[in-house]
Protein backbone atom coordinates (compact mmCIF):
# COMPACT_ATOMS: atom_id res chain seq x y z
CA UNK A 1 0.00 0.00 0.00
CA UNK A 2 2.75 2.35 0.95
CA UNK A 3 4.51 1.52 -2.26
CA UNK A 4 1.42 2.29 -4.33
CA UNK A 5 1.04 5.61 -2.56
CA UNK A 6 4.64 6.40 -3.38
CA UNK A 7 3.98 5.72 -7.04
CA UNK A 8 0.51 7.09 -7.61
CA UNK A 9 -0.10 9.77 -5.01
CA UNK A 10 3.01 11.15 -3.36
CA UNK A 11 4.71 12.52 -6.50
CA UNK A 12 1.68 14.61 -7.39
CA UNK A 13 1.53 15.99 -3.87
CA UNK A 14 5.18 16.92 -4.20
CA UNK A 15 4.49 18.74 -7.43
CA UNK A 16 1.67 20.81 -5.96
CA UNK A 17 3.58 21.31 -2.75
CA UNK A 18 6.50 23.03 -4.37
CA UNK A 19 5.35 24.47 -7.70
CA UNK A 20 8.56 26.42 -8.21
CA UNK A 21 10.61 23.27 -7.99
CA UNK A 22 8.18 21.62 -10.41
CA UNK A 23 8.67 24.54 -12.76
CA UNK A 24 12.43 24.11 -12.48
CA UNK A 25 12.14 20.43 -13.40
CA UNK A 26 9.94 21.24 -16.39
CA UNK A 27 12.39 23.90 -17.54
CA UNK A 28 15.32 21.48 -17.34
CA UNK A 29 13.26 18.99 -19.29
CA UNK A 30 12.31 21.60 -21.87
CA UNK A 31 15.93 22.57 -22.48
CA UNK A 32 16.97 18.95 -22.98
CA UNK A 33 13.85 18.27 -25.01
CA UNK A 34 14.39 21.07 -27.48
CA UNK A 35 17.85 19.70 -28.21
CA UNK A 36 16.37 16.23 -28.72
CA UNK A 37 13.90 17.85 -31.09
CA UNK A 38 16.72 19.37 -33.10
CA UNK A 39 18.54 16.07 -33.40
CA UNK A 40 15.34 14.25 -34.32
CA UNK A 41 14.67 16.93 -36.94
CA UNK A 42 17.98 16.09 -38.57
CA UNK A 43 16.99 12.42 -38.69
CA UNK A 44 13.54 13.13 -40.10
CA UNK A 45 14.91 15.27 -42.92
CA UNK A 46 17.25 12.59 -44.16
CA UNK A 47 14.71 9.84 -43.60
CA UNK A 48 12.12 11.69 -45.66
CA UNK A 49 14.46 12.43 -48.52
CA UNK A 50 16.21 9.12 -48.84
CA UNK A 51 14.27 6.67 -46.69
CA UNK A 52 17.37 5.87 -44.71
CA UNK A 53 17.88 6.04 -40.97
CA UNK A 54 21.05 8.06 -40.69
CA UNK A 55 23.12 6.29 -38.06
CA UNK A 56 25.82 8.96 -38.46
CA UNK A 57 23.62 11.82 -37.20
CA UNK A 58 25.09 11.59 -33.68
CA UNK A 59 28.66 11.58 -34.85
CA UNK A 60 27.90 14.51 -37.13
CA UNK A 61 27.02 16.48 -33.98
CA UNK A 62 30.41 15.64 -32.50
CA UNK A 63 32.25 16.19 -35.76
CA UNK A 64 30.74 19.65 -36.21
CA UNK A 65 31.48 20.72 -32.64
CA UNK A 66 34.97 19.23 -32.81
CA UNK A 67 35.76 21.06 -36.02
CA UNK A 68 34.66 24.34 -34.52
CA UNK A 69 36.61 23.90 -31.28
CA UNK A 70 39.60 22.34 -33.03
CA UNK A 71 39.90 25.25 -35.45
CA UNK A 72 39.77 27.67 -32.57
CA UNK A 73 42.45 25.74 -30.68
CA UNK A 74 44.67 26.11 -33.71
CA UNK A 75 44.42 29.86 -33.54
CA UNK A 76 41.43 30.59 -35.78
CA UNK A 77 39.21 33.28 -34.22
CA UNK A 78 35.81 31.97 -33.20
CA UNK A 79 33.84 34.05 -35.67
CA UNK A 80 35.92 32.83 -38.56
CA UNK A 81 35.93 29.26 -37.29
CA UNK A 82 32.13 29.24 -37.35
CA UNK A 83 31.70 29.93 -41.08
CA UNK A 84 34.58 27.59 -41.85
CA UNK A 85 32.79 24.85 -39.92
CA UNK A 86 29.66 25.53 -41.95
CA UNK A 87 31.70 25.15 -45.14
CA UNK A 88 33.12 21.89 -43.77
CA UNK A 89 29.60 20.60 -43.14
CA UNK A 90 28.70 21.51 -46.70
CA UNK A 91 31.76 19.67 -47.99
CA UNK A 92 30.70 16.68 -45.91
CA UNK A 93 27.17 16.73 -47.36
CA UNK A 94 28.56 17.04 -50.86
CA UNK A 95 31.03 14.17 -50.40
CA UNK A 96 28.41 11.92 -48.84
CA UNK A 97 26.18 12.45 -51.87
CA UNK A 98 28.98 11.98 -54.40
CA UNK A 99 30.82 9.10 -52.81
CA UNK A 100 28.14 7.18 -50.93
CA UNK A 101 24.56 7.90 -51.94
CA UNK A 102 25.02 8.30 -55.66
CA UNK A 103 26.57 4.88 -56.05
CA UNK A 104 23.93 3.28 -53.83
CA UNK A 105 20.83 4.56 -55.62
CA UNK A 106 18.06 1.97 -55.79
CA UNK A 107 19.78 -0.29 -53.28
CA UNK A 108 17.70 -1.69 -50.42
CA UNK A 109 17.36 0.61 -47.40
CA UNK A 110 19.43 -1.72 -45.24
CA UNK A 111 22.44 -1.17 -47.50
CA UNK A 112 22.13 2.58 -47.14
CA UNK A 113 21.76 2.12 -43.40
CA UNK A 114 24.99 0.11 -43.34
CA UNK A 115 26.64 2.85 -45.34
CA UNK A 116 25.73 5.40 -42.67
CA UNK A 117 27.26 3.11 -40.03
CA UNK A 118 30.40 3.08 -42.13
CA UNK A 119 30.24 6.85 -42.33
CA UNK A 120 30.02 6.97 -38.52
CA UNK A 121 33.27 5.11 -38.09
CA UNK A 122 34.94 7.11 -40.80
CA UNK A 123 33.99 10.36 -39.07
CA UNK A 124 35.23 9.08 -35.69
CA UNK A 125 38.58 8.13 -37.19
CA UNK A 126 38.87 11.24 -39.30
CA UNK A 127 37.92 13.53 -36.40
CA UNK A 128 40.44 11.90 -34.07
CA UNK A 129 43.12 11.99 -36.73
CA UNK A 130 42.76 15.73 -37.28
CA UNK A 131 41.79 17.08 -33.88
CA UNK A 132 42.85 14.33 -31.46
CA UNK A 133 40.63 12.19 -29.28
CA UNK A 134 40.69 13.99 -25.95
CA UNK A 135 37.61 15.90 -24.75
CA UNK A 136 37.60 19.63 -25.42
CA UNK A 137 35.85 22.63 -23.92
CA UNK A 138 33.23 24.33 -26.05
CA UNK A 139 34.25 27.90 -26.86
CA UNK A 140 31.11 29.28 -25.28
CA UNK A 141 32.56 32.65 -24.32
CA UNK A 142 34.20 33.31 -27.66
CA UNK A 143 30.90 32.73 -29.44
CA UNK A 144 29.39 35.39 -27.16
CA UNK A 145 27.02 32.92 -25.56
CA UNK A 146 25.99 33.98 -22.06
CA UNK A 147 27.04 31.82 -19.13
CA UNK A 148 25.47 33.52 -16.11
CA UNK A 149 22.27 32.47 -14.50
CA UNK A 150 19.09 34.32 -13.69
CA UNK A 151 17.08 33.54 -10.60
CA UNK A 152 13.43 34.03 -9.76
CA UNK A 153 11.28 33.55 -6.66
CA UNK A 154 14.02 34.33 -4.11
CA UNK A 155 16.63 32.19 -5.85
CA UNK A 156 14.31 29.22 -5.91
CA UNK A 157 14.07 29.04 -9.71
CA UNK A 158 17.43 29.14 -11.43
CA UNK A 159 17.69 29.50 -15.19
CA UNK A 160 21.08 29.20 -16.85
CA UNK A 161 21.46 31.88 -19.47
CA UNK A 162 23.12 29.40 -21.81
CA UNK A 163 19.98 27.26 -21.58
CA UNK A 164 17.81 30.23 -22.43
CA UNK A 165 20.08 31.06 -25.36
CA UNK A 166 20.01 27.42 -26.50
CA UNK A 167 16.22 27.33 -26.41
CA UNK A 168 15.87 30.62 -28.25
CA UNK A 169 18.35 29.60 -30.95
CA UNK A 170 16.79 26.16 -31.30
CA UNK A 171 13.29 27.62 -31.59
CA UNK A 172 14.46 30.16 -34.18
CA UNK A 173 16.25 27.43 -36.13
CA UNK A 174 13.16 25.24 -36.09
CA UNK A 175 10.93 28.09 -37.28
CA UNK A 176 13.30 28.97 -40.12
CA UNK A 177 13.50 25.33 -41.17
CA UNK A 178 9.75 24.87 -40.98
CA UNK A 179 9.23 27.93 -43.21
CA UNK A 180 11.92 26.74 -45.57
CA UNK A 181 10.40 23.30 -45.90
CA UNK A 182 6.79 24.42 -46.02
CA UNK A 183 7.04 27.25 -48.48
CA UNK A 184 10.03 27.01 -50.74
CA UNK A 185 10.50 25.14 -53.96
CA UNK A 186 13.11 22.94 -52.31
CA UNK A 187 10.72 22.17 -49.49
CA UNK A 188 8.02 21.06 -51.92
CA UNK A 189 10.58 19.11 -53.93
CA UNK A 190 11.68 17.40 -50.72
CA UNK A 191 8.12 16.33 -49.97
CA UNK A 192 7.82 15.09 -53.52
CA UNK A 193 11.02 13.06 -53.20
CA UNK A 194 9.81 11.63 -49.90
CA UNK A 195 6.63 10.42 -51.61
CA UNK A 196 7.93 8.95 -54.86
CA UNK A 197 11.46 9.12 -56.23
CA UNK A 198 10.56 8.31 -59.82
CA UNK A 199 7.69 10.77 -60.02
CA UNK A 200 9.82 13.48 -58.44
CA UNK A 201 12.50 12.92 -61.04
CA UNK A 202 9.97 13.12 -63.84
CA UNK A 203 8.79 16.59 -62.81
CA UNK A 204 12.34 17.85 -62.86
CA UNK A 205 13.47 17.46 -59.26
CA UNK A 206 17.16 16.63 -59.07
CA UNK A 207 17.61 13.92 -56.47
CA UNK A 208 21.29 14.72 -56.15
CA UNK A 209 20.65 18.35 -55.29
CA UNK A 210 17.98 17.41 -52.78
CA UNK A 211 20.33 14.96 -51.07
CA UNK A 212 23.09 17.53 -50.75
CA UNK A 213 20.59 20.04 -49.38
CA UNK A 214 19.15 17.72 -46.73
CA UNK A 215 22.55 16.47 -45.61
CA UNK A 216 23.78 20.04 -45.41
CA UNK A 217 20.76 21.14 -43.36
CA UNK A 218 21.27 18.13 -41.11
CA UNK A 219 24.91 19.17 -40.77
CA UNK A 220 23.90 22.68 -39.72
CA UNK A 221 21.45 21.25 -37.21
CA UNK A 222 24.24 19.00 -35.94
CA UNK A 223 26.47 22.05 -35.51
CA UNK A 224 23.83 23.96 -33.51
CA UNK A 225 23.18 20.90 -31.34
CA UNK A 226 26.90 20.34 -30.91
CA UNK A 227 27.51 23.89 -29.72
CA UNK A 228 24.62 23.84 -27.27
CA UNK A 229 25.25 20.38 -25.93
CA UNK A 230 28.99 20.93 -25.86
CA UNK A 231 28.46 24.00 -23.73
CA UNK A 232 26.59 21.89 -21.16
CA UNK A 233 29.12 19.09 -20.97
CA UNK A 234 32.21 19.04 -23.14
CA UNK A 235 33.00 18.10 -26.70
CA UNK A 236 33.96 14.43 -26.91
CA UNK A 237 32.96 11.40 -28.91
CA UNK A 238 30.76 10.26 -26.01
CA UNK A 239 28.45 13.08 -27.09
CA UNK A 240 27.25 11.02 -30.02
CA UNK A 241 25.30 8.87 -27.54
CA UNK A 242 22.67 11.60 -27.27
CA UNK A 243 21.73 10.87 -30.85
CA UNK A 244 20.29 7.58 -29.68
CA UNK A 245 17.85 9.57 -27.58
CA UNK A 246 16.44 10.69 -30.90
CA UNK A 247 15.21 7.14 -31.49
CA UNK A 248 12.46 7.20 -28.85
CA UNK A 249 11.68 10.71 -30.00
CA UNK A 250 11.17 9.46 -33.54
CA UNK A 251 9.07 6.52 -32.42
CA UNK A 252 6.89 8.94 -30.52
CA UNK A 253 6.68 11.55 -33.22
CA UNK A 254 6.79 9.39 -36.32
CA UNK A 255 9.79 9.02 -38.58
CA UNK A 256 8.36 11.21 -41.30
CA UNK A 257 6.86 14.06 -39.34
CA UNK A 258 8.64 17.33 -38.62
CA UNK A 259 6.11 18.54 -36.02
CA UNK A 260 6.31 15.03 -34.58
CA UNK A 261 10.04 15.39 -34.04
CA UNK A 262 9.53 18.67 -32.19
CA UNK A 263 6.64 17.53 -29.98
CA UNK A 264 8.26 14.13 -29.44
CA UNK A 265 11.51 15.76 -28.34
CA UNK A 266 9.72 17.90 -25.79
CA UNK A 267 7.65 15.00 -24.44
CA UNK A 268 10.73 12.84 -24.01
CA UNK A 269 12.85 15.66 -22.55
CA UNK A 270 10.26 16.81 -20.03
CA UNK A 271 9.03 13.28 -19.35
CA UNK A 272 12.40 11.90 -18.41
CA UNK A 273 13.25 14.81 -16.12
CA UNK A 274 9.92 14.56 -14.30
CA UNK A 275 10.25 10.79 -14.13
CA UNK A 276 13.74 11.04 -12.73
CA UNK A 277 12.88 13.68 -10.18
CA UNK A 278 9.58 12.41 -8.82
CA UNK A 279 9.76 8.68 -9.40
CA UNK A 280 13.43 7.91 -9.86
CA UNK A 281 14.25 7.61 -6.17
CA UNK A 282 11.82 4.68 -5.88
CA UNK A 283 14.16 2.48 -7.85
CA UNK A 284 17.37 4.08 -6.71
CA UNK A 285 17.59 6.90 -9.26
CA UNK A 286 19.19 7.24 -12.66
CA UNK A 287 16.13 6.25 -14.61
CA UNK A 288 16.73 9.19 -16.94
CA UNK A 289 19.00 6.99 -19.00
CA UNK A 290 16.37 4.44 -19.97
CA UNK A 291 12.97 5.99 -19.27
CA UNK A 292 12.77 7.43 -22.79
CA UNK A 293 13.14 3.99 -24.31
CA UNK A 294 10.45 2.59 -22.02
CA UNK A 295 8.06 5.36 -23.07
CA UNK A 296 8.82 4.56 -26.70
CA UNK A 297 8.24 0.86 -26.12
CA UNK A 298 4.84 1.46 -24.54
CA UNK A 299 4.04 3.77 -27.44
CA UNK A 300 4.88 1.12 -29.98
CA UNK A 301 2.12 -1.08 -28.57
CA UNK A 302 -0.59 1.50 -29.10
CA UNK A 303 0.45 3.75 -31.93
CA UNK A 304 3.28 2.26 -33.97
CA UNK A 305 3.14 4.97 -36.63
CA UNK A 306 3.83 7.64 -34.00
CA UNK A 307 1.82 10.69 -33.02
CA UNK A 308 2.00 12.38 -36.39
CA UNK A 309 3.40 9.67 -38.64
CA UNK A 310 1.56 8.64 -41.73
CA UNK A 311 -0.37 5.45 -41.47
CA UNK A 312 0.77 3.44 -44.41
CA UNK A 313 -2.23 1.99 -46.19
CA UNK A 314 -1.55 -0.23 -49.13
CA UNK A 315 -4.33 -0.55 -51.64
CA UNK A 316 -4.27 -3.90 -53.32
Amino acid sequence: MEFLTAIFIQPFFDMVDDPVLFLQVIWEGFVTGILYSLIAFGFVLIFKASGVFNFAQGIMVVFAALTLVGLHENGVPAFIALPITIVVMYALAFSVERLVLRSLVNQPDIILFMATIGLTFFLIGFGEFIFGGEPKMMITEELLLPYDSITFFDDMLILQEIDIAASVIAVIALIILALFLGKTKIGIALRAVADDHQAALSVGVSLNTIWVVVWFISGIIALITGIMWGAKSDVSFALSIIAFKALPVLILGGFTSVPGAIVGGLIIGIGEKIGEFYWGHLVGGSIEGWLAYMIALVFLFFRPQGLFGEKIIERV
Partner: protein
Amino acid sequence: MSAENNTGDVLLSVDHISLAFGGVKALTDINFEIRKKEIFAIIGPNGAGKTSMLNVINGFYHPQDGEIHFKGLHRKQMRPHEAAVQGIARTFQNVALFKGMSTLNNIMAGRNLKMKANLFWQALYYGPARKEEMENRKFVEDIIDFLEIQAIRRTPVGKLPYGLQKRVELGRALAMEPELLLLDEPMAGMNIEEKQDMCRFILDINEQYGTTIVLIEHDMGVVMDLSERLIVLDYGRKIAEGNPDEIRGNQAVIDAYLGVAHTN
Protein backbone atom coordinates in the same frame (compact mmCIF):
# COMPACT_ATOMS: atom_id res chain seq x y z
CA MET B 1 -6.24 13.36 -87.18
CA SER B 2 -4.14 13.47 -90.24
CA ALA B 3 -0.96 14.71 -91.78
CA GLU B 4 -2.00 18.35 -92.03
CA ASN B 5 -1.29 18.57 -88.33
CA ASN B 6 2.37 17.80 -88.93
CA THR B 7 4.86 20.49 -89.58
CA GLY B 8 7.23 17.75 -90.62
CA ASP B 9 10.00 19.03 -88.36
CA VAL B 10 11.65 16.32 -86.33
CA LEU B 11 11.39 16.89 -82.59
CA LEU B 12 13.11 13.76 -81.38
CA SER B 13 15.16 11.27 -83.29
CA VAL B 14 16.29 7.92 -81.99
CA ASP B 15 19.25 6.38 -83.82
CA HIS B 16 20.41 2.81 -83.36
CA ILE B 17 19.53 2.66 -79.67
CA SER B 18 20.46 -0.55 -77.85
CA LEU B 19 19.89 -1.19 -74.19
CA ALA B 20 20.84 -4.26 -72.18
CA PHE B 21 20.61 -5.23 -68.55
CA GLY B 22 23.46 -7.63 -68.02
CA GLY B 23 22.85 -10.29 -70.63
CA VAL B 24 19.23 -9.39 -71.24
CA LYS B 25 18.74 -7.28 -74.31
CA ALA B 26 15.84 -4.93 -73.69
CA LEU B 27 16.22 -2.91 -76.88
CA THR B 28 18.17 -3.72 -80.02
CA ASP B 29 19.06 -1.19 -82.67
CA ILE B 30 15.93 0.95 -82.51
CA ASN B 31 15.44 3.82 -84.95
CA PHE B 32 12.57 6.22 -85.32
CA GLU B 33 11.71 9.89 -85.53
CA ILE B 34 9.01 11.81 -83.81
CA ARG B 35 7.76 14.91 -85.60
CA LYS B 36 6.55 18.07 -83.96
CA LYS B 37 2.89 18.09 -82.90
CA GLU B 38 2.11 14.52 -83.86
CA ILE B 39 0.64 11.76 -81.76
CA PHE B 40 3.01 8.86 -82.01
CA ALA B 41 2.29 5.42 -80.59
CA ILE B 42 4.57 2.61 -79.51
CA ILE B 43 2.85 -0.76 -79.38
CA GLY B 44 3.88 -4.35 -78.94
CA PRO B 45 3.20 -7.45 -76.84
CA ASN B 46 4.07 -7.49 -73.12
CA GLY B 47 7.80 -7.31 -72.47
CA ALA B 48 8.54 -5.95 -75.93
CA GLY B 49 10.52 -3.03 -74.51
CA LYS B 50 7.98 -0.23 -74.84
CA THR B 51 8.41 1.16 -71.36
CA SER B 52 12.18 0.72 -71.61
CA MET B 53 12.05 2.90 -74.69
CA LEU B 54 10.21 5.65 -72.77
CA ASN B 55 12.68 5.31 -69.92
CA VAL B 56 15.51 5.85 -72.37
CA ILE B 57 13.83 8.95 -73.80
CA ASN B 58 13.35 10.62 -70.43
CA GLY B 59 16.71 9.59 -69.05
CA PHE B 60 15.86 6.88 -66.52
CA TYR B 61 17.90 4.39 -68.53
CA HIS B 62 21.11 5.07 -70.36
CA PRO B 63 21.45 3.05 -73.55
CA GLN B 64 24.79 1.35 -74.23
CA ASP B 65 24.64 2.24 -77.89
CA GLY B 66 23.02 4.77 -80.12
CA GLU B 67 22.18 8.44 -80.11
CA ILE B 68 19.19 10.55 -79.30
CA HIS B 69 18.67 14.03 -80.67
CA PHE B 70 16.06 16.18 -79.01
CA LYS B 71 15.23 19.55 -80.58
CA GLY B 72 18.23 19.01 -82.80
CA LEU B 73 20.64 18.68 -79.89
CA HIS B 74 22.60 15.50 -79.34
CA ARG B 75 22.37 13.89 -75.95
CA LYS B 76 23.70 10.66 -74.65
CA GLN B 77 23.87 10.44 -70.90
CA MET B 78 21.02 12.47 -69.58
CA ARG B 79 19.46 12.44 -66.16
CA PRO B 80 15.68 12.52 -65.76
CA HIS B 81 15.58 15.99 -64.26
CA GLU B 82 17.57 17.32 -67.21
CA ALA B 83 15.03 15.78 -69.54
CA ALA B 84 12.34 17.56 -67.56
CA VAL B 85 14.22 20.85 -67.85
CA GLN B 86 14.37 20.41 -71.62
CA GLY B 87 10.62 19.92 -71.84
CA ILE B 88 9.94 16.20 -71.60
CA ALA B 89 7.14 15.18 -69.24
CA ARG B 90 5.71 11.74 -68.64
CA THR B 91 3.18 9.61 -66.84
CA PHE B 92 3.81 6.12 -65.53
CA GLN B 93 2.35 2.71 -66.17
CA ASN B 94 1.71 2.22 -62.46
CA VAL B 95 0.54 5.65 -61.41
CA ALA B 96 3.36 7.46 -59.61
CA LEU B 97 1.76 10.30 -57.71
CA PHE B 98 2.70 12.04 -54.47
CA LYS B 99 0.13 10.11 -52.49
CA GLY B 100 0.24 12.22 -49.36
CA MET B 101 -0.56 15.44 -51.21
CA SER B 102 -3.83 16.80 -52.58
CA THR B 103 -4.67 16.89 -56.28
CA LEU B 104 -3.85 20.58 -56.34
CA ASN B 105 -0.42 20.13 -54.76
CA ASN B 106 0.42 17.23 -57.01
CA ILE B 107 -0.20 19.36 -60.05
CA MET B 108 1.59 22.30 -58.40
CA ALA B 109 4.59 19.99 -57.99
CA GLY B 110 4.67 19.90 -61.79
CA ARG B 111 5.35 23.65 -61.69
CA ASN B 112 8.54 22.96 -59.73
CA LEU B 113 10.79 24.01 -62.58
CA LYS B 114 8.79 27.15 -63.30
CA MET B 115 9.33 28.61 -59.83
CA LYS B 116 12.12 31.11 -60.09
CA ALA B 117 11.80 33.45 -57.10
CA ASN B 118 14.62 33.01 -54.63
CA LEU B 119 14.28 30.88 -51.54
CA PHE B 120 14.24 33.82 -49.17
CA TRP B 121 11.09 35.34 -50.67
CA GLN B 122 9.53 31.93 -51.06
CA ALA B 123 9.98 31.20 -47.35
CA LEU B 124 8.33 34.47 -46.42
CA TYR B 125 5.71 34.11 -49.14
CA TYR B 126 6.11 37.76 -50.00
CA GLY B 127 7.16 40.01 -52.83
CA PRO B 128 8.05 38.27 -56.09
CA ALA B 129 7.31 34.83 -54.63
CA ARG B 130 3.71 35.76 -53.96
CA LYS B 131 3.13 37.01 -57.48
CA GLU B 132 4.80 33.93 -58.90
CA GLU B 133 2.73 31.61 -56.75
CA MET B 134 -0.46 33.31 -57.95
CA GLU B 135 0.54 32.92 -61.58
CA ASN B 136 1.42 29.28 -61.15
CA ARG B 137 -1.74 28.70 -59.21
CA LYS B 138 -3.75 30.23 -62.07
CA PHE B 139 -2.04 27.92 -64.54
CA VAL B 140 -2.78 24.91 -62.37
CA GLU B 141 -6.43 25.90 -61.98
CA ASP B 142 -6.72 26.06 -65.76
CA ILE B 143 -5.41 22.51 -66.00
CA ILE B 144 -7.84 21.39 -63.32
CA ASP B 145 -10.71 22.91 -65.33
CA PHE B 146 -9.38 21.41 -68.53
CA LEU B 147 -9.27 17.90 -67.04
CA GLU B 148 -12.60 18.38 -65.26
CA ILE B 149 -11.29 17.48 -61.83
CA GLN B 150 -12.50 20.55 -59.93
CA ALA B 151 -14.40 18.43 -57.44
CA ILE B 152 -11.33 16.58 -56.20
CA ARG B 153 -9.07 19.61 -55.93
CA ARG B 154 -8.45 19.16 -52.21
CA THR B 155 -8.64 15.37 -51.98
CA PRO B 156 -5.45 13.49 -51.09
CA VAL B 157 -4.73 11.56 -54.28
CA GLY B 158 -4.15 8.28 -52.42
CA LYS B 159 -7.91 8.17 -51.80
CA LEU B 160 -8.95 8.67 -55.42
CA PRO B 161 -10.09 5.87 -57.69
CA TYR B 162 -7.54 4.66 -60.21
CA GLY B 163 -9.04 6.40 -63.22
CA LEU B 164 -8.95 9.78 -61.52
CA GLN B 165 -5.39 9.19 -60.30
CA LYS B 166 -4.35 8.72 -63.90
CA ARG B 167 -6.03 11.98 -64.77
CA VAL B 168 -4.22 13.82 -61.95
CA GLU B 169 -0.96 12.35 -63.16
CA LEU B 170 -1.68 13.67 -66.63
CA GLY B 171 -2.41 17.05 -65.05
CA ARG B 172 0.93 17.06 -63.29
CA ALA B 173 2.71 16.32 -66.55
CA LEU B 174 0.77 19.10 -68.29
CA ALA B 175 1.74 21.57 -65.56
CA MET B 176 5.30 21.28 -66.81
CA GLU B 177 4.22 22.78 -70.15
CA PRO B 178 6.09 20.03 -71.94
CA GLU B 179 6.98 19.98 -75.59
CA LEU B 180 7.04 16.22 -75.54
CA LEU B 181 4.59 14.28 -73.43
CA LEU B 182 5.21 10.59 -72.83
CA LEU B 183 2.15 8.59 -71.79
CA ASP B 184 2.74 5.06 -70.55
CA GLU B 185 -0.54 3.18 -70.85
CA PRO B 186 -2.78 6.11 -69.93
CA MET B 187 -5.90 3.96 -70.25
CA ALA B 188 -4.86 0.76 -68.53
CA GLY B 189 -7.47 -0.44 -66.08
CA MET B 190 -10.12 2.05 -67.18
CA ASN B 191 -13.71 1.42 -68.14
CA ILE B 192 -15.04 2.52 -71.53
CA GLU B 193 -16.33 5.88 -70.35
CA GLU B 194 -13.07 6.75 -68.66
CA LYS B 195 -11.20 5.70 -71.78
CA GLN B 196 -13.34 7.94 -73.93
CA ASP B 197 -12.66 10.87 -71.59
CA MET B 198 -8.95 10.17 -71.67
CA CYS B 199 -8.94 9.98 -75.49
CA ARG B 200 -10.70 13.32 -75.64
CA PHE B 201 -8.14 14.87 -73.29
CA ILE B 202 -5.22 13.54 -75.28
CA LEU B 203 -6.61 14.90 -78.54
CA ASP B 204 -7.42 18.25 -76.93
CA ILE B 205 -3.94 18.56 -75.43
CA ASN B 206 -2.45 17.86 -78.82
CA GLU B 207 -4.67 20.40 -80.52
CA GLN B 208 -4.87 23.18 -77.96
CA TYR B 209 -1.33 23.20 -76.65
CA GLY B 210 0.34 21.75 -79.71
CA THR B 211 2.08 19.19 -77.53
CA THR B 212 3.81 16.29 -79.21
CA ILE B 213 2.62 13.05 -77.63
CA VAL B 214 4.19 9.61 -77.44
CA LEU B 215 1.73 6.99 -76.37
CA ILE B 216 2.09 3.41 -75.21
CA GLU B 217 -1.23 1.62 -75.19
CA HIS B 218 -2.59 -1.90 -75.41
CA ASP B 219 -6.10 -1.01 -76.51
CA MET B 220 -5.73 -1.28 -80.28
CA GLY B 221 -8.97 0.58 -80.98
CA VAL B 222 -7.64 3.54 -79.02
CA VAL B 223 -4.22 3.42 -80.62
CA MET B 224 -5.54 3.27 -84.17
CA ASP B 225 -7.96 6.15 -83.51
CA LEU B 226 -5.52 8.45 -81.79
CA SER B 227 -2.18 8.02 -83.38
CA GLU B 228 -0.96 9.37 -86.68
CA ARG B 229 2.06 7.10 -86.86
CA LEU B 230 3.24 4.19 -84.79
CA ILE B 231 6.02 1.71 -84.37
CA VAL B 232 5.69 -1.87 -83.25
CA LEU B 233 8.25 -3.48 -80.95
CA ASP B 234 8.70 -7.17 -80.35
CA TYR B 235 11.45 -8.70 -78.22
CA GLY B 236 13.24 -5.35 -78.15
CA ARG B 237 13.31 -4.95 -81.92
CA LYS B 238 11.31 -2.67 -84.15
CA ILE B 239 9.27 -4.88 -86.46
CA ALA B 240 7.13 -2.26 -88.17
CA GLU B 241 6.56 1.44 -88.57
CA GLY B 242 3.84 3.36 -90.34
CA ASN B 243 0.38 4.84 -90.12
CA PRO B 244 -2.45 2.86 -88.53
CA ASP B 245 -3.68 1.44 -91.86
CA GLU B 246 -0.26 0.16 -92.82
CA ILE B 247 0.23 -1.43 -89.41
CA ARG B 248 -3.16 -3.15 -89.47
CA GLY B 249 -2.24 -5.04 -92.58
CA ASN B 250 1.35 -5.82 -91.61
CA GLN B 251 1.96 -9.57 -91.44
CA ALA B 252 4.89 -9.33 -89.00
CA VAL B 253 2.70 -7.41 -86.56
CA ILE B 254 -0.11 -9.89 -86.80
CA ASP B 255 2.36 -12.68 -86.19
CA ALA B 256 3.86 -10.96 -83.18
CA TYR B 257 0.49 -10.48 -81.57
CA LEU B 258 -1.10 -13.78 -82.44
CA GLY B 259 2.00 -15.95 -82.45
CA VAL B 260 3.21 -17.90 -85.44
CA ALA B 261 2.97 -21.61 -85.88
CA HIS B 262 6.51 -22.70 -86.62
CA THR B 263 6.43 -25.44 -89.14
CA ASN B 264 9.50 -27.48 -89.84
